């Protein structure tokens, strides 16, 4: 049986050890690694060397497009395409457009935030390389899991295992690919 290693996996049970471990792994030059945690652990992203998310820019663009479309919609429909005199009110004015401007800004901004997030996380996905790993499955429950992937240039099965043990990882093991990848295409879990 000659199966391809996907990643070396270790469990952690204390957030302090986890953050220190992530920091060490990052400093050793590993880039293809990830920590799976049941809740966001403060400072872990910085320890892992994760770059600041660009999501706020995506949301900002969304908000601006919402505002622009609201102004355009109200001006074009009421002030240009169908000018109807109602009680002598102006066909278009910034003042009365404010509520709809605000609502559409929020709405489009929220959509950009949602879909921006899904895009940045590459979600939804029905598959994860570690989905059969028993440690990984407990990452949504009570275990912190660190996985260093085998496509990392610094990955060697011996060194990486040694590193994960030295930083306090428990149950360090290599997760192998399935022999027949199409035998089960069930979603994670």
């Amino acid at each position, binding site marked *: 049986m000659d199966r391809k290693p996907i990643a070396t996996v270790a469990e952690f*049970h204390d957030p302090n050890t986890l953050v220190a471990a992530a920091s060490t792994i990052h400093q050793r030059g590993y880039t293809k690694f990830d920590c799976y945690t049941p*809740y966001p652990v403060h400072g872990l992203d910085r320890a892992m060397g994760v770059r600041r998310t660009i999501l706020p820019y995506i949301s900002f663009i969304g908000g601006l497009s919402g505002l622009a479309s609201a102004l355009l919609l109200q001006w074009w429909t009421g002030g240009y395409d169908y000018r109807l005199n109602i009680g002598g009110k102006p066909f278009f004015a910034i003042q009365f457009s404010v509520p709809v401007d605000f609502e559409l800004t929020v709405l489009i901004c929220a959509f950009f935030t949602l879909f921006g997030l899904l895009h940045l996380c590459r979600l939804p996905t029905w598959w994860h390389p570690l989905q059969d790993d028993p440690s990984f499955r407990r990452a949504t429950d009570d275990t912190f899991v660190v996985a260093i992937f085998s496509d990392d240039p610094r990955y060697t099965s011996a060194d990486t295992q040694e590193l994960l043990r030295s930083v306090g990882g428990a149950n360090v093991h290599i997760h192998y690919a399935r022999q027949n990848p199409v035998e089960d295409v*069930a979603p994670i879990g």
Partner: protein
Amino acid sequence: MATVTTAHHPTMHVDGLRHEREPLVLGEPTLHDITAKIAHIAEDKPTPKYLLALSFTAAIAAWGVGCILYTILTGIGVWGLNNPIGWGWDITNFVFWIGIGHAGTLISAILFLFRQKWRTAINRSAEAMTIFAVICAGLFPLIHVGRIWFAYWLIPYPNQMQMWTNFRSPLEWDVFAVSTYLTVSLIFWFLGMVPDLASLRDFVKNKVAKRIYSLFSLGWSGSMRHWHHYEMAYLILAGLSTPLVLSVHSVVSLDFTAGILPGWHTTIFPPYFVAGAIFSGFAMVMTLLVIAREVLDLKEYVTLKHLENMNKIILATGMMVGYAYAMEFFIAQYSGNPYEAFVFINRATGDYAWAYWTMVLCNVVSPQVFWSRRLRRNVPLMFIISILVNIGMWFERFTIIATSLHHDFLPASWGYYTPTWVEVSIFAGTFGIFLTLFLLFAKYIPVIAIAEVKAILPAAQPHHHAHAAAHAPEHPQVQPTQTA
């Protein structure tokens, strides 16, 4: 197997004194305990009591839907509306339900921005309540328009008539405000739930349930690289929802204030409506949570401290509403406008005085008991007060709408309005819809934000270095688990 324990409680250091702060989660559960507790609610077979309650609320909902169909098929002549009272229970119920929803957003968004950690136990159910309340609210304007099959005319779209909607009307603003509110609340609620649905996906044994939770958890893995984006998304949505919730009830109040009717045409309405919305919403959260923590056995998570905090907010917003009642009365007299002054005197002494004084008793007088800490922590009492507040807030909207309409400028056009059985049934029906949805939610969706509660356990976050050194022995011990 879980080994992250809550070894010590957070403490405050004030001038060398050490005050033990009341813990947010009682009984020192482990991370696994929390997952198991919430997942078991979803996984266990529904009890006969639950099914009985569900069939009861579903029956009321069905009766309400039947009456809505009767209204649609016959026309809104089956209601008690007349000239001059063209807005009755329908619009009262719309404003009432929209208001109920506001506490959910307040708890989920505003308390999040203020870093109020106690919100984690109650935010999920409060957000669910928001969504169900907005669904109930949205029904009323739709059936009120009479020809519901033309309700899509409210949306600006290119059409054969070559006409556009009138953006100068607050009613059109309402279409945008309410639909945005529903959509953004849904996004916020769903996004907050994704990690918890993933927890349930990995926990439940039932194959069908696993598939369903897999689908809705979108393949969430708990990757820290994802959490990093996720926390930012949550923050942005909270930041968006905060002004949104204030805007929605403000826009609803503009439906009234933009009219020139005495009693409606006042500038105090937007803040007054928002305070009232938060007030009634918190009362509804209280009603539901007192029942839910009893029935679902969630007393370790929804503690007396949570309930007490909500009672404080009920007291504060109740006082704001009381202030608004007094102030609009004063301004009406001070304005020198005889019609305005008359409407308010008429509210307190006229045909609808019974509604006005019910409102004052329920909204202003009853919450005053919460000045006492002992009474703030009395569960049966707070349950009664929360129901009184809900009744009072419904009467507030009814008073505003009916009393202002029934006596306007000309005595020749005065009238009186009483609802018919159809209107009463539809209102009861929306309670049926609301409670049915809430019961389904409480059973099958993680009713407490699992990941958020885990994150506020005392030992959940890494300590600062200096602090960590001082508390080293208190750290949770590491126990490797066996490979399954």
